């Protein structure tokens, strides 16, 4: 019987790295999603073009290739990144591109009458966006953001390939040390699944919270 308790410590360390990576990646993705999503709706052509180029590029290439590019190619042009930085950068930019389309779709789904009401109340563009449009649009975005966050969590497993010690990496270590494949991989599959369930549960409760006070506004 192998001493599993010591190996469990490794797996827990890996889980912490995965969670940290997911959180940091999500924050970057959220920022990029709003920047690029609002950029696509901008009045200025140059902003729209920049946002479209960013979204098409990051949705068009594989997360795996982006990660390798960030880790192996960027140092050659003078941008040295640690594995963690490269991971957060690639994950955040990649998922941010997907989420940007969600932001755009949600803002566009808000009815014309809301925009007209903003004008009628003499709100500026920014004020209208901040107090009228975004609070309603955010609720539309939330469920899809939840799915995007789960996609991000699943994508974090790829960082193990650039030697970042996340769950998948630690499972490989345990496998190499014990020669047992079944137990470490089954364990991390369950851990990933629990984390995914936690995300979808968290997003659902956030959705309920945000929906308070909007009764009657949305059908």
């Amino acid at each position: 019987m192998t001493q599993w308790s010591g190996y469990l410590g490794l797996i827990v360390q890996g889980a912490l790295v995965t969670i940290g990576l997911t959180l940091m990646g999500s924050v970057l993705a959220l920022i990029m999603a709003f920047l690029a999503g609002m950029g696509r709706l901008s009045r200025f052509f140059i902003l729209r073009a920049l946002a479209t180029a960013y979204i098409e590029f990051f949705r068009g290439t594989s997360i795996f290739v982006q990660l390798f590019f960030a880790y192996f190619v960027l140092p050659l042009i003078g941008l040295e990144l640690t594995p963690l930085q490269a991971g957060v950068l690639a994950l955040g930019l990649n998922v941010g591109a997907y989420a940007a389309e969600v932001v755009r779709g949600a803002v566009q789904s808000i009815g014309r009458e809301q925009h007209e009401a903003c004008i009628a109340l003499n709100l500026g563009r920014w004020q209208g966006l901040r107090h009228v449009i975004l609070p309603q649009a955010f609720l539309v975005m939330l469920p899809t953001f939840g799915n995007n966050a789960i996609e991000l969590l699943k994508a974090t497993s790829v960082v193990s390939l650039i030697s970042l010690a996340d769950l998948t990496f630690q499972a490989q270590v345990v496998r190499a040390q014990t020669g047992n494949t079944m137990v470490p991989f089954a364990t991390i599959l369950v851990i990933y699944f629990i984390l995914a369930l936690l995300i979808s549960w968290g997003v659902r409760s956030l959705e309920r919270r945000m929906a308070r006070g909007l009764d009657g506004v949305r059908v």
Partner: protein
Amino acid sequence: MEWDWDFVRQILPTLIQGVKITILATLLGSVLAAIVGLGIALARRSPNKALSRTVGWAAEFIRGTPLLVQLYFIFYVLPDIGILLPPLVAGVIGLGLHYGTYTAEVYRAGIDNVPRGQWEAAKACNLNARQTWTHIIIPQAIPPMIPALANYFIAMFKETPLLSAITVLELMNQAKSVANTYYRYIEPITLVGAFFLAISLCSVVLLRWLERRYGKIER
């Protein structure tokens, strides 16, 4: 580090070898995903509660965990119980199962979108279950699904670099081995990115066409 066109010409044949495997894996994976998805969708509609619950949970589990770990699982764990798979077969099974859980949702939505009246009309015409499915439901359910299915196949195409982790010699792996041999990363990895971007942009055009051709649901 300078961009070197001679080096590009030198490594191109090797990369094209990889491209072939990448495309092969995508095609086989798509076929498998289409079949697995239909199986899951039908099993979830089954009147047998035990079957539909079990399949539902299994699909949820596969969707909530990373493809990379599933690939490791198939490639490293199954040999322990006597199933030895070549890397490409293991990769295709992984891709097919993972994306099968996504396409199952597309099938479900497509089948749910067939109006109730069609089911009732089939019953009124005294068709049995098999006839109802093959002559009434499937022919109406499939065309609106085609764009959504194609979307997942493109997503699968972008996940194929993960197969390099289980030693399939696809594009990413060829690029890595070339990079490690000559110790030049900038050209191979950039070319891989450019290749994925090119194929993705082409497939976006195809997708738009599919959407115009099949996406409309006639009411």
